[in-house]
Every structure is written in C-alpha cells, then in structure tokens.
C-alpha cells in the first residue's frame, strides 16, 4: 500500500524525504562504487531492479479471500542486501509513481522510508537473527518476508498517524485507527507473502543456484549449500 500523491502535508512529506535520503545516498554510493570496479554489475543490478518491480506486481491470494501484491522487501533484502535495496526500492517506487500512479512524487520520501529502508532492514535483521539462532533457511526467509512486509505497513500507519493525529487521543489513538486499517488487515497478507517467498526461494535454489551463488546467498561449491549467517552478513 503506497501513500497516495498529495496525501501527506508538505512538512511531513519533506521530513520523510530527509529521513530517507541518507539511506538512499548510501545505497547509491555503494552502487556507484560497485559499478566503477565491475561495470558488468550494472546489468545485474538492472535485472535485480526489474525483478523487484515485477515481483511487486504479482497477485497473491489472501486468507480473507481478497488479493494483494507482495512488497518484495523480504526477498529483495535477502538476495540483494538492504543498502542496494534502498536504491533499487527508490527507483521501483519512482517507476510505480510514474508508470502506474501508485504512490507519488511528494510522498516518495515517506514510501521509500517504509518500503525501501525499514522493510528491507527489518527483513534482513530477522533473517540474520533467525539463522544465528539456528533456524533453517526456509524459516529465516519466511520470517524475513512476513515481518518485513508487516514492518512496512506499521511504519506507513505511523506516518499517517503523525500527519493526522486523533482529535481526542492524539497520535496514539491515530496509530490505533490507521494501524487497524493498514497494519492489522495486513497480517494475513504478510503470512501469504512469507509462504510465497519460501516457495520462490526453494525454487530458485533448485533452478538457479549459480545466480544465488553470485549474489552471495549460497556458498560456492558443487552442492551449492546455503551460506552461514556470518557469510551472509559479511
């Protein structure tokens, strides 16, 4: 769920843009450095970005009977790491605003902060933590995708609540109101995205181990075994 164009008051829109900027600049500098040392990685990054855009266009069925789109933040963070996702997510959100009118230019900063910064970092943190605690790859991917999705929507609810505090109970009451609409309803969808991401990851391990090795998700070797947490976090 993207915050629509013009929805946030100007000061809030500017503040979220400032909050997201350091992460995006950090990601952009990492990408520029990587491209300078390995020009071929430009093509890989283009493929990764296009994959993220198209992944977010898939329709997943929810337990409530409705349909939704995955945020793709969990899978993106595990495959490409959060700094790269901050930049790729920003480009994807810009494309979604200008190609689909989903989101907007004034609300780009707020959407980037929730979907390209907090979502991927929460997902990656959960993935690393699960693996360190001895959880399997499937459990790590499931929790990363589900909690990354949920974190995105919780942040969106907070952004909306800060912009429009409740008349009686202030920001806290407003968080409850927006959270009940945009975050609680998201729980079944987050579970759906988690399950789907596990299935996609299992499929990728089977059909595309070379690319996963190149991305650092699998460690090199004939068996193409999943990397340990220390390697994944490096």
């Amino acid at each position, binding site marked *: 769920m993207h915050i629509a*164009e013009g*929805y946030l008051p100007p000061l809030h829109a500017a503040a979220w843009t400032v909050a997201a900027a350091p992460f995006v600049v950090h990601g952009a500098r990492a990408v520029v450095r990587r491209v300078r040392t390995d020009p071929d990685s430009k093509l*890989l990054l283009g493929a990764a970005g296009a994959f993220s855009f198209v992944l977010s266009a898939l329709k997943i069925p929810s337990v409530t009977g409705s349909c939704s789109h995955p945020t793709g933040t969990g899978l993106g963070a595990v495959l490409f790491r959060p700094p790269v996702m901050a930049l790729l997510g920003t480009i994807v959100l810009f*494309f979604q605003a200008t*190609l689909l009118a989903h989101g907007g230019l004034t609300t780009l900063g707020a959407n980037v902060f929730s979907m390209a910064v907090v979502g991927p970092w929460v997902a990656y943190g959960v993935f690393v933590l699960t693996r360190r605690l001895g959880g399997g790859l499937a459990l790590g991917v499931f929790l990363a995708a589900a909690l990354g999705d949920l974190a995105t929507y919780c942040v969106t609810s907070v952004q909306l609540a800060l912009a429009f505090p409740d008349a009686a*109970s202030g920001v806290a009451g407003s968080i409850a109101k927006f959270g009940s*609409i945009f975050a609680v309803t998201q729980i079944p969808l987050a579970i759906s995205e988690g399950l789907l991401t596990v299935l*996609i990851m299992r499929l990728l391990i089977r059909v595309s181990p070379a690319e996963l090795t190149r991305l650092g998700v699998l460690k090199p070797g004939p068996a193409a075994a999943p990397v340990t947490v220390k390697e994944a976090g490096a």
Partner: protein
Amino acid sequence: MLPLDAVAYTNRWRPRHPAEKAFLSLGLLTCAVALPPWPGAPVVGVVAAMLLLGPAGVAPRQVWRAMKVPLGFVTVGSLPLLVAVGGTPWIRFEPTGVPLALQLAGRATAALLCLLLFAATTPLADTLPRLNRLGVPPAITEVSALMYRMLFLLLESVRTVREAQASRLGFRTWATSYRSLAGQGGAIFVRAFERARRMEEGLALRGYTGSLRVEVEQRPVSQPFVVATGVLLVVVVVGTLTLRRVLA
C-alpha cells in the same frame, strides 16, 4: 505495455521537451500541496484536468483508469479522520473530522491529477537520460534505464507464464495457486538474470567499456510554453488566495 506508459507515447504533448512538462506538472503539484486545500484543491485540480483532457489530448477513460487505485487509498485513508477514539464511548463519529477528510481527499485528488499530467504525457525513456543534468550519477540513470527496458519483457513473461498455468488449472486450489505464483517468481528471476548475462556477453563482444550512453533526441525548450506556464502558476496562486479571501 502499461496503460499509462502507452498514453505517454501517444498523447499530443509527446514531442515537447520533458523539462517543459516537468515545470508545468511539478509547479501545479507544488501548488496543490502548498496552497490551502479550500479553494486551492478544486482550482489546481480543474486546471490540471483541463490541461490533461484538452491540450494534452488524454482520454477521460484513461485518466479514470489510472486514478482508480490511488483514489481507493485516499477514500480508505480519509475514513479514520471521521472517527475519534478514547473517552466515552471509546469510538465515535467525529463531526470536526468531516471538513478535514474532505480537504485531504480534495488535496490528494488535485495532486494526483498533477502527477498524471506529467506521467501521462512524458515517457520515462525521455526523462531518465536527462536526469544526469540534475546531478544524478550516470551509473544510477543507466541502472534505471536498464530496469525500465527489462521490466516490460518480464511483465510479458509473467503474463505468458500465468496464462500457461491457468490453462493447466494452476489456480484451482490454494496449494496450486501458491505453487503457480512461486513458479512465476522463479521464472522472472531466471529470465531477468539470463537476459542480463546475455546482454553482458553481447556488450563484451561489442567492446563494452562500462558506459551505456544512448542517443537522446534533442528537442528545443519552447520559451512561449515556459512563459505561459509561469503565468499560469502565478494566476493559480493569486487566484486561489483571492478566492479564499472572498469566500472567507
């Protein structure tokens, strides 16, 4: 092709320089969010809609199609302003929230029309190579351009895979639906990276040095258009503030 992108290639303002359209659309967008929603939102919204449907020649059906989903968010997002929580009863209708919700919906609708004025008249292929002049590093614009070119191929692949899965009853039950969706995700991953690898090989054979610069069609910036836009923006600001004083 995505419907909005198709319109961007076929509208009457397609040959105009992207900077002209950005100045007009983003100027109006700034007015939409910065001016008081009443009467700023109706004024900006009507101006943007008239430009979109008139000189730009975008069909009303196409505008409505692009607006449906974001308007859904605006409607649902305005509802919480109509209720208050806390106190007795714990949840109740809040009459003071009605004007606030209307202002919010009005501002968001006007801003959405301004966004569409840019998105429906300017293909991204025209915008991306020119972002370098705004200080965006070439590596970033080139990655964006690659994404733009690849995503249509991938969307087409997903459509084909989905049709094939549906023909084989791949969405009959929950289990088969999830398996089919995972297949779609896996297919786009494999095709995206396969295409990148083939492109890498092709570029290497052509003496790739790290630069993916493409020829950008030179278009002069129309001075009359820029002046008219400046005048229009001043009229919108002064008109809105005058109208506000008159209506107060």
